[in-house]
C-alpha cells in the first residue's frame, strides 16, 4: 500500500473530522430517531445537528423517513470500525503507565489487534501505603482457584504453598517457567504430592532454558498480566487484572500462543 495522504480515505476523514457527526452517528447507531430526540439527548444546538444530518443524508450515510433518521447498514459497519478503533485507543490510554516503557514483544499482532478485549480490565498498582497490593490481589485469586495456568518469571515465597493447596484439592496447574525457577519452586513442594500430580497430569510444567519477559496468570475466573520494563527488570508494581470473559479469552490465547512458540 502506498503511504501518502490518500492512505486515510476521504470518507473516513469526513466522518472523524466532525465531533458533531460522530455524536449524531453514535445516537443513530443505538436506534433510529428524530432530530429533536438527538438534540435533547446530546444537548447540541439544533442548527448544527440539522445541518450535519443533512450532510450525512446527502452522502447516504443515513436515511430519513417520516422525520425519523436511520443509519444505513454500511454506515453502521464503517462506524463500528471507528468505535472499535476508539476503544483500542482507550485501552492504550487508560493503562498508559502499564504499557509505556514496558516490553510488549511477547504479545503478538493478532492479540494487539484485539486489545479491546482488555477494555474492562483494571490496572492494579501498588502505592506507598500498600506496596503489596499487586501480590495480595494475586494471592487472593490463587487461594480461591481450582485450576491455574501461568507464565511465571519469578517465584514469590507464597507461591509454593498456594500451588500445593491447589494440587491437594485435586486442581490442575499448568506452568511455563525457566529451569532454575522451576527447581526453586519444586524444592518447596511436598515431593510425594509433586510426583503424584505429575504422574496423573494435574501438575504440568513446561521448562525453558531462558526466562520469558512476561508474567501471565490465569485463574478460574480471572486473568493477570504483568510486563517487564524496557530496562529488563520485572515491574512488580503493576498488574492488569480482569474477570471479564473477553479478557480471559484474550489471556488464554496469549498463553497458548507463547506455549506453542517456546515449547
Amino acid at each position, binding site marked *: *500500500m502506498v*503511504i*501518502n*495522504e490518500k*492512505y*486515510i*480515505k476521504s470518507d*473516513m*476523514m469526513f466522518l*472523524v*473530522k466532525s*465531533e458533531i457527526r*460522530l*455524536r449524531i452517528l453514535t445516537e443513530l447507531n443505538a436506534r433510529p430517531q428524530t432530530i429533536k430526540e438527538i438534540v435533547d439527548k*446530546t*444537548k447540541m444546538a439544533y442548527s448544527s445537528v440539522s445541518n450535519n444530518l443533512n450532510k450525512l443524508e446527502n452522502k447516504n450515510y443515513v436515511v430519513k423517513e417520516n422525520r425519523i433518521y436511520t443509519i444505513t*447498514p*454500511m454506515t*453502521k*459497519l*464503517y462506524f*463500528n*470500525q*471507528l468505535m*472499535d*478503533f*476508539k476503544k*483500542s*485507543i*482507550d*485501552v*492504550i*490510554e487508560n493503562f*498508559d503507565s502499564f*504499557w*509505556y*516503557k*514496558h*516490553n*510488549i514483544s511477547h504479545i503478538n*499482532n493478532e492479540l*494487539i*489487534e484485539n*486489545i479491546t478485549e482488555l477494555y474492562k480490565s483494571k490496572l492494579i498498582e501498588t502505592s506507598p501505603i500498600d506496596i503489596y497490593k499487586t501480590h495480595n490481589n494475586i494471592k487472593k485469586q490463587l487461594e480461591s482457584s481450582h485450576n491455574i495456568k501461568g507464565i511465571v518469571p519469578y517465584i514469590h515465597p507464597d507461591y509454593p504453598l498456594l500451588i500445593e493447596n491447589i494440587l491437594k484439592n485435586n486442581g490442575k496447574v499448568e506452568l511455563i517457567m525457566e529451569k532454575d525457577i522451576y527447581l526453586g519452586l519444586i524444592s518447596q513442594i511436598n515431593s510425594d504430592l509433586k510426583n503424584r500430580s505429575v504422574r496423573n497430569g494435574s501438575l504440568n510444567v513446561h521448562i525453558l532454558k531462558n526466562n520469558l519477559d512476561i508474567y501471565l496468570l490465569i485463574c478460574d475466573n480471572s486473568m493477570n498480566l504483568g510486563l517487564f520494563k*524496557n530496562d529488563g527488570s520485572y515491574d512488580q508494581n503493576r498488574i492488569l487484572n480482569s474477570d471479564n470473559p473477553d479478557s480471559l479469552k484474550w489471556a488464554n490465547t496469549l498463553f497458548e500462543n507463547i506455549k506453542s512458540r517456546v515449547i
Partner: protein
Amino acid sequence: MSTNTIEKNQTHEFKNVKYILTSSMRTLILVVLYNNRRNLNEIRDELKKPSATILHGLKELEENNLIKKDRKYYELTSNGYLLATNIIKLIDNWYSIEKNKYFWNSHDLSGIPENLLNKLYLLKDAQFISSTTSDLSNAFNTYIELISTSPELTIMLPIYSENHLKHLIRLLKNGNLKQLTLLINTEIFQTITKSRYLKKSLIENEKVKIIETDENFKIFLTFCRDFMTLTLFFKDNHYDDSQIIIDKHQSAIKWSKDLFDTILE
C-alpha cells in the same frame, strides 16, 4: 455531575480518534515507523514531505510518548506500537469493506446480525461475480460449478428455487455430495413437502439434514470446508440472483459458520 460537565466529557469523547486520524502526517509517521526505526532522511524519502512538516509531526508524537528518538533514529514506543497496529487494522478493514462496496451497498444487509456485520472485513479476499447482459446466468452457473465438487455443504436457503434444488438433488444422486445441511424457513419447508419428488429426494434423504426455522432470513449463504458464497436481496425485497460473492479463505469460511450458528440460535 452538572450538565455542563457531561457536555464537556462528551465533546471530548472522540478527541483521541480525531487527533490521530485527522492529521495525515501523524498517522503516516506512525505507519512508516511501524515497520522499522528510521532517521529523518529516510522518513522524508518515504513520505516525500518537507523536513519542517515531518519534524513538527515527530515532535508532537514524541510529546505524546508515541515515538522516541535514539540518537538519530526515531522508533515507536510500546504505546506507539500498540496504536500503530490498530491504525493499520482500521485502515485495512476499511479498504477491504470498500473493495466490494458496490455489492454491500446495493443489497439489504439488515438480515446480517450486527456482530457479524462488523466483521464483514473478514471477507476481504472475496471475489465478486456478476452476471452480464451477454451471460445472464453467470453468477448462478459459477455457483453450481463451485458446489459440484464439494462432498459436504451447509446452505441457508431463503428462497424456494426449483433450479437450485434440482442441482442439489443431482449432486446427491451422483454421489458427489455426501452430506447436505439445509436451513430453510417454515414456508419453504411446507412448499417442498407438497412435492412428492422433492420430499422424497430431500426430506426423506438420509444424506440431508433439514433445519426448519420461523425466521425469515434474507441471506443466501453456502459454505463448506473450502469456500463460502453469499447472495443477498435487493433493498426492495427482491432476491438478486445476478451477483454473488465467493471467498475461499479460512477467515471468510469461519465468518459464514458464525453467521449460520447465530441465525440457528
